């Protein structure tokens, strides 16, 4: 697909995934790792797309799990810009991640704008309720916010992606070695942020040793992720069994 086509697709993708149609479906759709499947399909470079998506996912793992639905950073905007540009400019995942970070921050303001404009529809719904117009209420809950969302979101991604590819290629050529290496360091450290956030939302301090077990199961026992998942499920179920008994007694 041409850069124009890809930019249009990503603009629509950003709008649709952030529309949040389908509560848990849309929240998975806006994750970098699922987004990169679609970017891989339209750019024809699935491998690089998935690698960038996986790297970016690690940074934002845990962001969506923040209570109250207030996003502290937006993986959707970051991904819709950094993954296609990264793939088209043939960036290493580390550089693409560094590119994504500022857009993740901007995305928060875009979402605040959406929630503010959404207040208009609830007042329309009040009027529809007065008239017992159930169709009107459904329109206010679905159609109007969707249209407003498109106007807010589509242009941002479309413009940045369309002009960004050629600009990104030029910038990559002139990046000095020390800055390149900073990106690599950043790419190594940033996942730590994703994990730290997940740790704060998942758990009580008492449970942290389970995290340490997982960490060293990979480094010392050299288990792969699937093996760890299987053992984790068994350990959790068995412990639950003992814990139940204790509470009954």
């Amino acid at each position, binding site marked *: 697909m041409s850069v124009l086509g890809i930019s249009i697709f990503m603009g629509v993708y950003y709008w649709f995934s952030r529309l*949040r*149609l*389908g*509560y*848990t479906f849309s929240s998975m759709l806006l*994750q970098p*790792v*699922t987004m*990169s*499947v679609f970017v*891989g399909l339209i750019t024809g470079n699935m491998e690089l797309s*998935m*690698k960038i998506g*996986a*790297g970016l996912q*690690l940074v934002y*793992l845990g962001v969506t799990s923040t209570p109250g639905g207030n996003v502290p950073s937006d993986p959707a905007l970051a991904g819709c810009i950094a993954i296609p540009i990264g793939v088209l400019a043939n960036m290493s995942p580390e550089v693409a991640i560094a590119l994504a970070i500022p857009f993740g921050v901007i995305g928060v303001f875009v979402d605040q704008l959406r929630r503010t404009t*959404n207040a208009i*529809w*609830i007042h329309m*719904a*009040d009027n*529809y*309720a007065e*008239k*017992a117009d*159930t169709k009107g*209420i*459904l329109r*206010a*809950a*679905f159609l109007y*916010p969707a249209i407003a969302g498109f106007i807010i979101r589509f242009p941002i991604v479309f413009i940045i992606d369309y002009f960004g590819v050629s600009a990104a290629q030029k910038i990559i050529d002139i990046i000095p070695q*020390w*800055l390149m*290496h*900073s990106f690599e*360091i*950043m790419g*190594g*450290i940033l996942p*730590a*942020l994703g*994990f*730290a956030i*997940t*740790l*704060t*939302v998942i*758990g009580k301090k008492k449970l942290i040793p389970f*995290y340490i077990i*997982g*960490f060293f199961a990979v*480094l010392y026992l050299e288990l*792969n*992720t699937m093996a760890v998942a299987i053992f984790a*499920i068994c350990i959790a*179920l068995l412990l*639950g069994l003992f814990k*139940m008994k204790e509470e009954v007694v």
Partner: protein
Amino acid sequence: MGNNKIENSTNKITKKDVTKSMWIYYAGAELSNSYERLQSLVFCASMTPILKKLYKTDEELSAALKRHLVFFNTEGIIGAVIQGITISMEEQKAKGEDITDDAITGIKTGLMGPLAGIGDAIIWAALMPILISIFLPFASNGSAMGGIMPLILYPLITILISYYLIHNGYTLGKKSVVSMLHGGKMKQIIFTANVIGLIMMGALSASYVTISTPLVFQFTSGTQIVIQDILDSVVIGILPLTAVFVIYTYLKKKGPNYNRILLSVVVFSIICSLLGIL
């Protein structure tokens, strides 16, 4: 309540109606979310197929719709049980039982907090990162499966939970939640999910947080000390683990100041790159 429904009522709510209500709520739980009343609009929208059937005059229907436009917010999957209970209450009310507006609103607002807590802990803090992390290695190797599997499994599992809960809430009424909140069963599920989640996060941290130092001390006698080798001989992965816990401690102390940490990491990386420490 709820068990002795009158069978020969013409306005009987069918299982299909309840499921339809679930789909509307699932589709739009976040879509029309506003700062002013959060999920109230979608909750009201999800009640429309029910209310249209129950209330035949415009005045009654209008009153019922307005009843559900009041402030409402919860976690959208576990929160389906509130919908189920509300539907059964509306049905009782339409049949002439003495249920006030306040009783319905009271149940909704009373339950939305605790259920949001449970939902956030299970659906968002545990299930989502666990599913992503199990398939993440596929993505790192360049395989589309890493994205496709979570995109299928997460909605599938959560919709099944919603479906079970809304019908359970409808048939059992308030009882369904009482057993849920006080049976210790929920605590059990949250504990199990947390343990799995934490172990998985640990495993992923080990693979994906990659920090190592190129520092080498060269002595005049010709011996050299490679710092990374020394660190590895003490504990493998000490630098990545330290990074996670430094950020974790900061988050615990200063709250979720995400952007400040991001900026700090950027600055820290550039300095370490220039100094050649990392």
